[in-house]
């Protein structure tokens, strides 16, 4: 397939996944922000949420002081924020339009319908100011549904060929990144079992993390225990059965890259890098992770994930002429 098509499919899925993640963390932060400090409300909830979205610097530059209304507007609607939910949906549709022939009708319609609906919401939330909470929760629900709808139509209708693999690859790369980021923002409340836990004070922080990755129910099923911070970290980092864990994302990333490698008859740097990360996640345990320092572990992971993104790009999505013909010679030889 065309490199550009693969690139568009990959980013299309990333943007849809990112929009979904943003909707979830806004929702989780809203709950936390309403808690009295005695229940773990920190007063800096929106700051850490902006941080998890990778939007804090931009926010400070464009808006300034952090408050709830401005933070929500910035994360969800602000045209100045290149990763606002609305911009994600806009980019997703631009990418989709560029590769309509590689999408199934169902996928296109799910994106196009979401985009039209988003335009309607944009007229409601046209400018910063007060935010109608009821409309906001409708909006966040809509974004999650749109992402589900796209995901479902991709899953149900796409041919299982490279177009599908690149599209799913984008989803899991984005998901691994966002899971790692939300953990990293909260690493200070995720303590190993040996540490004294600060009582129930952090309880709501832990549930907020789980909620943000829609893992609250999953937690109960897996651990059958009250919420412990080290289990939260374990669930989202190492558990293969948890669909948003780093481990699970890399299971999928490696599988997809292998599919591509097999179909094209050659492997490359991306495959090697992905396997290496998966190996660490498969063989590691939480003791090691906490031993290294959770923050250090996550920073490392995020960098590694970015590196893999670059390798996938260079190997398949964008290459200069020399690299293009170089690759050709290797495959013939």
């Amino acid at each position: 397939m065309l490199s550009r098509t693969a690139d568009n499919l990959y980013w299309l899925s990333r943007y849809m996944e990112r929009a979904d993640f943003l909707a979830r963390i806004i929702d989780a932060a809203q709950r936390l922000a309403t808690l009295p400090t005695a229940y773990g409300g920190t007063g800096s909830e929106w700051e850490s949420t902006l941080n998890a979205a990778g939007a804090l610097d931009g926010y400070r530059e464009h808006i300034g002081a952090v408050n709830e209304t401005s933070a929500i507007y910035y994360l969800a609607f602000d045209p100045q924020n290149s990763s606002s939910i609305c911009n994600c949906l806009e980019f997703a549709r631009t990418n989709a339009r560029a590769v309509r022939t590689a999408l199934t009708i169902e996928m296109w319609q799910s994106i196009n319908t979401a985009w039209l609906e988003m335009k309607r919401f944009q007229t409601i939330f046209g400018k910063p100011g007060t935010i109608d909470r009821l409309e906001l929760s409708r909006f966040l629900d809509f974004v999650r549904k749109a992402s589900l709808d796209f995901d479902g139509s991709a899953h149900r209708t796409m041919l299982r060929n490279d177009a599908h693999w690149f599209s799913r690859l984008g989803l899991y790369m984005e998901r691994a990144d966002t899971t790692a980021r939300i953990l990293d923002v909260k690493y200070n409340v995720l303590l190993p079992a040996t540490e004294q836990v600060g009582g129930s004070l952090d309880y709501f922080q832990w549930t907020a993390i789980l909620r943000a990755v829609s893992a609250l129910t999953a937690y109960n099923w897996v651990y059958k225990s009250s919420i412990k911070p080290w289990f939260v970290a374990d669930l989202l980092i190492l558990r293969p059965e948890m669909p948003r864990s780093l481990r699970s994302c890399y299971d999928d990333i490696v599988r997809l890259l292998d599919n591509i490698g097999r179909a094209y008859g050659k492997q490359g740097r991306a495959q090697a890098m992905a396997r290496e990360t998966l190996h660490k996640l498969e063989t590691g345990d939480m003791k090691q992770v906490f031993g290294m320092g959770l923050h250090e572990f996550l920073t490392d992971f995020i960098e590694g994930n970015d590196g893999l993104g670059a390798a996938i790009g260079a190997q398949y999505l964008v290459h200069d002429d020399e690299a293009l013909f170089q690759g050709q010679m290797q495959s013939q030889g």
Partner: protein
Amino acid sequence: MANGRFFDEMTKPDGLPRAVYERVNDWLASAPPELLASRRSQAELMFRRIGITFAVYGDKDSTERLIPFDIIPRVLGRSEWTRLEAGLKQRVKVLNMFLADIYGKGEVIKAGIIPEDIVFQNEHFRPEMRGVKVPHDVYVHISGIDIVRVDDHDFYVLEDNARTPSGVSYMLENREVMMRLVPELFSRHRVAPVENYPDALLTSLRSVAPKASGSDPVCVLLTPGIYNSAYYEHSFLADKLGVELVEGRDLLVRDKIVYMRTTQGPQRVDVIYRRLDDDFLDPLAFRPDSALGVAGLMSAYLAGNVTLANAVGTGVADDKAVYTYMPEIIKFYLGEEPLLKNVPTWRCREPDTLKYVLAHLPELVVKEVNGSGGYGMLVGPHATQAQIAEFAVKLQNDPDGFIAQPTLNLSTCPASFESGIGPRHVDLRPFVLSGADGVRVIPGGLTRVALKEGSLVVNSSQGGGTKDTWVVDDESTGGLI
């Protein structure tokens, strides 16, 4: 509903329907207004969801718009169609012969049929193409010949679109939408299918691949990109053809061979159905500032390593000045009378004619020789004094750049509105394919309709809409519903 001044395709002056329209007439008479209203809004919803849109240049507010769709089909009888089809085949055959000739021996010029300067000074004439042999002498692989009617017999050619005509996706989608919207009306007719157009197009494209490309040539569709007004059509067609939709940046030329950039490395390309004008094809050969094309593409083309459809330099054949000579050109090549009429046209380059045109501007339609899309034309009867004065100056400054035609009494067809049903002016763009195995016409085409009451401008960029076009067998389905 008939309007005495114009030929109405449904209703005769005596108020009775013409035979081919009887069943549509019955349906309209029996369908309650609510039904038509609900079908209209369903149609809009379907188009919006499928995402069939176009962009209007110079309209900042909306980069994407729907072309209005009218749910009453435009009907042509089989016998009418057969006459039209023969004329279209004749016309396109001659367009190809003309191009092969002017880029070859130039017999038509030597014989004095057409003045040399009209051909060689034409801005669409490409000297690079002189002496170049294109596969099977086919230049115009895809054409959309604009046809109008003024009575129930003659078809007039308004324009020969021989560059990159668009609109075929509307022909196909309009049919799909109509089959879902008005099944009850469909079932009363036998309508010639149009859905095989992509197959026919692919067959034509493959038939003109370079000899060296083997039995399974690789075809692609080259688009200027998502900001082009016809992008939707490009992606739609690529999908139906099952070929890659490429932009200039997806292609590269090495050693005069065209490749596309794929996830598996470079892949050779044999035939390019390009929806990009000559000027933008190759910055090394034409406009150096074009970022839409492919550097070196012309070198590969001239070396015969890739086929471009349509060929480079076809614009000279659909030029409005050349158009005026088409009847003589047809007689010259085929020794036959033209089956389709030309609209009488005044060539402003001739001083006496210019004088006449200037004196009669309020009743004429004046067009730029190189214009298209309804831009830059004057419709005398609908123009203000100021617009007419402005055009008079333009004409005097550049008489070679303009032609004038009488304001045609374009035929009307019924169209459906909130306020009821009313006649509106229409034209027709049938699509004609040429390949190694000859010329093919798909029975149907794009009917464009001027939705503004009384308007004669059908271009979508100027507020026109579309209709499905039915070529129906003259006898009914025998009462089966």
